[in-house]
């Protein structure tokens, strides 16, 4: 009923309130988020002349517009803390990856070479197959004195039904780097932050530590104690075989 009265105020010429305003209006009105009366509607216990639901909602919607302005952050529901997520990316050489496109037509890695790739993704504790990585590395320059190359990497990490995280940033074959987390979907919707890339065995095994902000708490099955990175790490046989208890739901493949 409350939602009906709030929406009726839209016909009075007020701009349609955004979802966050609707939520605030409901909270102020003593209703919970489903529109049911709250147990302890503090705001409605003051002595006040009786209001009808329609006038109260109309006032609240109007007030909510003005109350919203001073609020410092519209993202209050999401935690501001940084969540760490560790994953392993492993090239098992069964996905045709990488596809090294030597488009520069030069004998050494040069600007112009492109490297699309896709590898398998496992949880940090190497107990679960989560999905895949997929994207593109753009060769930027070859650095003979470092014995490696600089790439610009643009790719995503897929976590099955959980969603995905997109990243962009430097990939140096000779040292660890930080990439920017540019966005995500599913449980990662609205994510921001960075991810540290550590190469364990170039180019087959990589270890990532995500520093994620702006998303709800991650599920426990992604947060198992990570296996410390070392060249000999391997996924558990069950994860490698994608046995049902050793994968994320509908893991990406």
């Amino acid at each position: 009923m409350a939602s009906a009265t709030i929406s009726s105020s839209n016909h009075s010429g007020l701009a349609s309130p955004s979802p966050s305003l609707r939520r605030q209006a409901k909270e102020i009105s003593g209703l919970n988020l489903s529109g049911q009366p709250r147990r302890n509607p503090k705001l409605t216990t003051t002595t006040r002349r009786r209001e009808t639901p329609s006038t109260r909602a109309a006032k609240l919607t109007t007030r909510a517009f003005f109350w919203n302005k001073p609020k410092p952050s519209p993202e209050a529901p999401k935690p501001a803390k940084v969540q760490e997520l560790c994953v392993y990316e492993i090239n098992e050489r069964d996905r045709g990856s990488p596809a090294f496109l030597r488009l520069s037509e030069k004998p050494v890695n040069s600007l112009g070479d492109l490297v699309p790739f896709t590898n398998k993704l496992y949880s940090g504790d190497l107990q679960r197959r989560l999905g895949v990585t997929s994207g593109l590395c753009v060769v930027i320059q070859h650095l003979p004195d470092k014995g490696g190359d600089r790439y610009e990497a643009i790719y995503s990490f897929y976590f099955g039904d959980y969603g995905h995280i997109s990243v962009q940033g430097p990939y140096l074959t000779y040292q660890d780097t930080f990439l920017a987390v540019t966005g995500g979907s599913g449980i990662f919707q609205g994510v921001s932050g960075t991810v540290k890339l550590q190469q364990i065995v170039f180019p087959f095994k990589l270890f990532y530590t995500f520093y994620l902000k702006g998303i709800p708490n991650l599920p426990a099955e992604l947060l198992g104690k990570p296996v410390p990175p070392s060249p000999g790490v391997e996924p558990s046989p069950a994860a490698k075989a994608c046995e049902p208890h050793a994968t994320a739901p509908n893991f990406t493949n």
Partner: protein
Amino acid sequence: MACSSSALRTISSSSVKLARSSRSASGSPPKTLLPFNLSTPFLPKLAAASPSSSSQSLCSALPRRSFSCKSQAAPAGGDSAPGKVQELCIYEINERDRGSPAILKLSQKPVNSLGDLVPFSNKLYTGDLQKRVGITAGICILIQNKPEKKGDRYEAIFSFYFGDYGHIAVQGPYLTYEDTYLAVTGGSGIFEGATGQVKLQQLIFPFKLFYTFYLKGVKDLPAELLGKPVPPNPSVEPSPAARACEPNATIANFTD
């Protein structure tokens, strides 16, 4: 990004950020200069064979207040995201010593077409052109050739590298015939969590570009990145010390 065609002089362009092409800068009437805070300024898009060939000095014409383009930069509709908007000005200069750009005519058509890709990497200097900060690195994906604009539309996905400070990742439109705004998609180091947009202005196509970042969600930027920007014009050059990467004219571990 509407632009009035009368003020915009287009040049025929068959490639973006090409190091070797030489285009004659035919004489043209002076452009109508619009202040930055009204719309994108129309700067002559001369592809100079030599950097000093500009006949138009725009320094004096651009007001100092032009660097606060709040009307375009300020989020519309009363966005109350935390933190203020910080402006950061940067010059990207192609000094033709990085093998950039690498034009991949994968469409195999004589005219720029969907399928062509252009990886690139150029040098970055502070807005006051006193310090070398790093490089840009990324890729331009050709989307369509616009014969009526004598230019092309690209989708650009690239990063700005600031040495030890970190990097900023951007994505958005690159039109060879007019200025554009790209999205700031993220960053690392001091730019971790960055959002906002960046205005791209071409000074000399495709060798010199001027960027104005409107960044939110980052801590106060260090002073050495915030020197008073040199007003963009085709003849700007980095200071000799910055170009030579002398230690006092670079930021810490500038990206190279």
